[in-house]
């Protein structure tokens, strides 16, 4: 009973109801987009007068039909998927070894390096985007898709590292020592002992970077080209030119896609939701 102090009765009820209210408020725009996507009307009236799947059918026609203005939709979707996949791989390649170095080794400047690696979170994306654009055009090299991928790797690296470092901290160093004592090389120890143990942390980091990159707007806005035209830029242009409920249907589809990935991350992380902390 004593343990329950403030954990039940009026106080707990107040906290629970304010949480529910605030959560509803935070999620309101997302809920509205999903509801709007089912409207039967051709206007953007909210709440919709009637519900239907007509705009999803419309999107299906756009994606499969011959309508020239929408052939870019599928193309943009693939571009975004490729950028997100490459960014996630890049973050793994950079984040996993760096996390390992920071967690397992003691060296001069360790704290400073850890600090530096967290910097991209507060570094203004607009500045990064513009500076990269200036550098790329000054270099005269056509980076193609890589200019967005590199930008995404930079800003999402801290998210990857946070997941990896949390996972690595839970691995007992004695296991690695044991493997090394038994004659395994450091590389073999890493791939056969450490990696399997941090697998779910790495996987949730990969998925997090994937979905963040898939949805990223600011850097894509500065670095897109006619050939590399991500979905977020496609949506932005459509919303400026022809704003129809079909935009909401496409948006809702990306919401479902993202929500599914977040659910997988949550399942990978397991009970308690530790990784996103």
């Amino acid at each position, binding site marked *: 009973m004593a343990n329950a102090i403030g954990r039940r009765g009026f106080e707990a009820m107040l906290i629970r109801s304010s949480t529910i209210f605030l959560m509803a408020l935070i999620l309101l725009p997302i809920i509205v987009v999903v509801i709007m996507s089912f409207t039967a009307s051709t206007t953007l009236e*909210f709440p919709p007068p009637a519900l239907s799947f007509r705009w999803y059918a419309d999107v299906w026609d756009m994606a499969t039909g011959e309508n020239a203005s929408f052939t870019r939709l599928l193309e943009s979707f693939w571009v975004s998927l490729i950028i997100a996949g490459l960014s996630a791989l890049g973050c793994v390649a950079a984040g996993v070894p*760096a996390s390992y170095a920071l967690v397992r080794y003691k060296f001069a400047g360790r704290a400073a390096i850890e*600090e530096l690696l967290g910097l991209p979170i507060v570094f203004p994306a607009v500045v990064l985007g*513009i500076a990269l654009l200036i550098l790329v055009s000054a270099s005269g090299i056509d980076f193609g898709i890589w200019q967005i991928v590199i930008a995404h790797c*930079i800003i999402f690296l801290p998210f990857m590292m946070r997941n990896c470092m949390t996972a690595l901290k839970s691995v007992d160093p004695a296991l690695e020592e044991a493997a090394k*004592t038994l004659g395994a090389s*450091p590389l073999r120890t890493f791939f056969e002992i450490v990696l399997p143990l941090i697998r779910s942390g790495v996987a949730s980091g990969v998925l997090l970077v994937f*979905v963040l990159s898939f949805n990223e707007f600011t850097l894509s806005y500065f670095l897109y080209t006619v050939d590399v035209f991500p979905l977020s830029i496609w949506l932005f242009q459509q919303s400026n030119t022809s704003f129809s409920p079909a*935009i909401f249907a496409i948006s809702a589809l990306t919401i479902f896609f993202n929500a599914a990935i977040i659910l997988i991350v949550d399942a990978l992380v397991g009970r308690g939701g530790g990784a996103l*902390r």
Partner: protein
Amino acid sequence: MNKRMWSSSKMVSSGLPNPVVPAQRPKIKRRPVAWLLLPAGLLIGTLFVCTLTVVRISLGPRYAEWDGWSLSAYAEAADPYFLSIVLNTVWLAVASAILAVLISFPIALFMVRTASNFARRVVLIGIMLPMVISLLVQSFGWVAILGPDGLFNQIAFAITAEPRTFTLLFNSTGVLLGLVQTTIPLAVLPIISSLGGIPVDLEEAASVLGAKRLQTYRHVILPLAAPGIIAGTILVFGFNTGAFVVPLLLGGSRVSTIAVIIRDQMGTLFNWPLGAALSVILIVIALSMQAANRLIGARSQFER
């Protein structure tokens, strides 16, 4: 596998007082660290080069950014118009940070105290979604909510019979709401970690000593949760000083932030030095917050 490697690792791990170990340790360990940090270092190095580029261009004359040197861009940036936008950005970031923390505190309390793992996970997913899902997509939702015939005005209409009571879209109210909503996780996560570290015994002790619940909050819980609250405030502030998408989409042309005018100066007006000077100001604001965070000693979630 390699015999030399085998023997040296064995010596390190055996823990026996072997005089060779202290001498060898740095030799074995230092080189892998450099290699391990290399890929991440290249990414952060690119960020560093970008910063230098921006600083360089801000110090160049217009149309000859790479050749000459001049401080005229900073003189231009000191114009009252730009100063008002800098102030407006800082104000939006401060207000959004305070609101985000106020909203996050009860949510974090709930997540720390609930006995249900399921509820905790649902709330966690709920606060992550607005940060992860495209801001563009969410801004479509905000337009439907805040617009002249949107949800809020319809509710107001039902109550007061006064059409279009609120103008929320394309002014700072809408921008502020958007900024708060998308940065909630940055505030919730540090608060959770500091709240989670408060033993329930302390609350009991306060209660035994006759403290009312409000007094316990005021004198026990809030002071102990302060590092997380401060870390969350600074993180949201730092993130929102660079706000671009939300003001671009919800502010129309009426609400400008530093990031939006940087885009205007660089992209449409081709005044690179001025855009770069404003970028330098933006970087300084964002990084000084990071430094303040360090000085206060409140370690935020992301650098753990």
